[in-house]
């Protein structure tokens, strides 16, 4: 994929590329949220779509075994992963517009005891970008100790990129209209007004156990309603 990506960045921005996640690694974000008999299993990870499908079942079995879940989960997990992969693959055949597209990415997630809020710009055309590298820098710079935070950040970014990429497939025809608007926006670069610094500054909060419980309860209520 990489030589292809390099060609696209330096060449005319009007070329189209076959659909893929616009990062250096073409990894699909997979989210699982399965409930059986009152047991809830939630997980989020990235999957390499070029792995054979047999790996899905193996992964499901191993997960169930490691977490000691009832075996009914195996089929559910495998099905969920498969359906998301199929969705991705169905888009793969279509064209994706790879013009310059700076999109805002927002982070608003809670991982165990850490609350993260952040906002920044991401170039959809930059096929050398890597959410994992960003997440790593983020955690190092802010001294985040919990090792689960980094992957969660990378996953959140990837999910948003995926969604935007899906939209760009649909809107491949309509891009020409927006070119002028984009040029206008480019003039405002590069330094940001100071009052906006706070908006784009990351916020990392460490919560206590009670706050975590309260937040979880609220999330569940929101999910039910």
């Amino acid at each position, binding site marked *: 994929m990489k030589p292809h990506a390099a060609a696209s960045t330096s060449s005319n921005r009007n070329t189209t590329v076959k659909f893929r996640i616009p990062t250096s690694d073409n990894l699909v974000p997979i989210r699982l949220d399965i409930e059986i008999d009152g047991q809830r299993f939630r997980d989020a990870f990235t999957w390499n779509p070029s792995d054979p499908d047999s790996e899905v079942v193996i992964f499901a079995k191993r997960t169930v075994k*490691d977490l000691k879940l009832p075996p009914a989960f195996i089929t559910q997990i495998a099905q969920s992963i498969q359906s998301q992969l199929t969705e991705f693959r169905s888009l793969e055949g279509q064209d994706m517009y790879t013009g310059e597209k700076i999109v805002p990415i927002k982070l608003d997630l809670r991982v165990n005891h850490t609350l993260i809020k952040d906002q920044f710009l*991401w170039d959809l055309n930059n096929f050398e970008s890597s959410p994992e590298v960003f997440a790593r820098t983020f955690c190092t*710079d802010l001294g985040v100790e919990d090792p689960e935070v980094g992957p969660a950040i990378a996953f959140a970014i990837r999910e948003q990129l995926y969604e935007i990429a899906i939209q760009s497939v649909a809107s491949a025809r309509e891009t020409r209209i927006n070119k002028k608007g984009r040029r206008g926006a480019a003039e405002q670069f590069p330094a940001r007004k100071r009052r906006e610094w706070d908006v784009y500054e990351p916020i990392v909060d460490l919560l206590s156990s009670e706050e975590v419980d309260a937040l979880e309860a609220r999330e569940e209520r929101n999910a039910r309603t």
Partner: protein
Amino acid sequence: METPSKDPSFKTPASRRRWFSWDDIHDTEKSHLREFFDGSSFTRSPKIYRDYRDFIISKFREDPSRRLTFTEVRKSLVGDISVLHKVFAFLERCGLINFCAPGGEDPGEEGNWRVRVEDGAPNGVRVVAAPNPNSLKPVTVPPGGSDNGRGVVGNGFDLPPLASYRDVYSERKGTICGNCKQRCESGHYECTKCFKNGHYGENKSVDDFKFIDCIPNSGNHEAVWTEAETLLLLESVLKHGDNWDLVAENVKTKTKADCISKLIELPFGDLMLGSTHRRGRLWDNDGNMSIVQQVQLPSSETHSQENIKTDDQCHDVEKESNQNGDAETQVPPLKRKRTISPSDTGNALMKQSHITLGQPPPLSPAAALLSPKYCSSHLSSMVGPHITASAAEAAVTALCDECQCPREIFDGDANEGEELGSSPQNNKKEREIEERPTELESQGTSSEKNAIPLTFRIRAATATALGAASARAKLLADQEDREIECLAATIIETQLKKLQCKIKHIDDMELIMEKEYTQLEELKESIIAEQMNALQRVFSTGISRWKDHTSVKPHVDSVL
């Protein structure tokens, strides 16, 4: 935008920024950050690149002593975050920023990661931690000490030769004054009480008391155990078991409490206590390790079975030593010993193994921290003196094959090893132990000689311990196999018995049926005979017509 500070006194390594100038973009920059210069996008142009670069550098120069993080700058710059990061990384690599900041890591390198060991699994996955208290627990990184990812403690540490895991990482205990044997709570000149009281001890004076800073509220204990003392302690524990007074007597320089705490600190210490407990009774009976040789086993079947086991054990050790070193040198001594063992120590071994099989495997690699001498004595109590001697020999030979140097050192010790193997008596051991400190002292002058024995001894001890451990494991596995066979045989036997019972049952039933059959036959015959009888009588009375059944019957009835 902020104006860049052009402080002339600002020092940067000249070599790094020789090419840099505020007013121009150097070729290096152009080649590394091509996306700004190839016109591929509106958002990336040379001017924009300069803006980014100048902003980042001036931001850094606001406070050159601290390390500027990417996260700090990215909030103030508009643009694709990956590209910004690339610029930032480029500037950092070139030394234009963060060159004199502490802990400056190249963010791209993987090797500088701080090793963080978690206690237990992350929340999504639970793994039960191993409950073995003797295993090394994960070591937490000391705070603030390893920015550059020096990782697990112990890399730069210079531990004393006999330091055990608990020595280094466990909490220290209360200090006991060497003089008045009382607890010292305060930061002490060895003991404030003694100091005040004037009990300075024989050759000490006020000046000799060093001020030892004491961590408040912890009551630390700082007992220094030399190798010789530890060896003495272990020997005396083996000999005296629970009798701490005798143990303290043996280890003359340490108190009873010291001995106990030291033993507990050693990784296998409490196991030793456990084992001596169980064998304490055996010890007390005769005070001799060879007691078990005198125990006779009841039946001959078990005897032969165990002989087989012994042979297997010897065979295993032989296998082990074959793996360890040359085959030829090992086989003769083992064969010699093998002929002795079934007759003599067969019983001993089996009795011991019966006793010891219930225990958890007492050998841990930490045992190798002591000299192989101790190891051999310990092992010989568990596994059998001949086996230990051969294992030790095998290990030593393996080491000697690797390097000729320690051969003479070990050969000198080998004689004592032979003694140890042939007559495991406590007196001899003690004498030998007393010899050892002197031996150590004599070697103490030549420092280089000291270095070699220690490492090689450690390796020899490790090899011995591992060899004996694997022999034992093989023995246990074989025994399990045999047990399984035995059980399978029992099952088969039971099934056969069941079948036999059924067959017998069926046979009986057959007999009964045959009898019944004959009875029925007889009955039948008698009935027929009666009938014939009756008919005859009927005929004899002259019935005219035979065809008339109806008339015959009433006649038959009336006749009968």
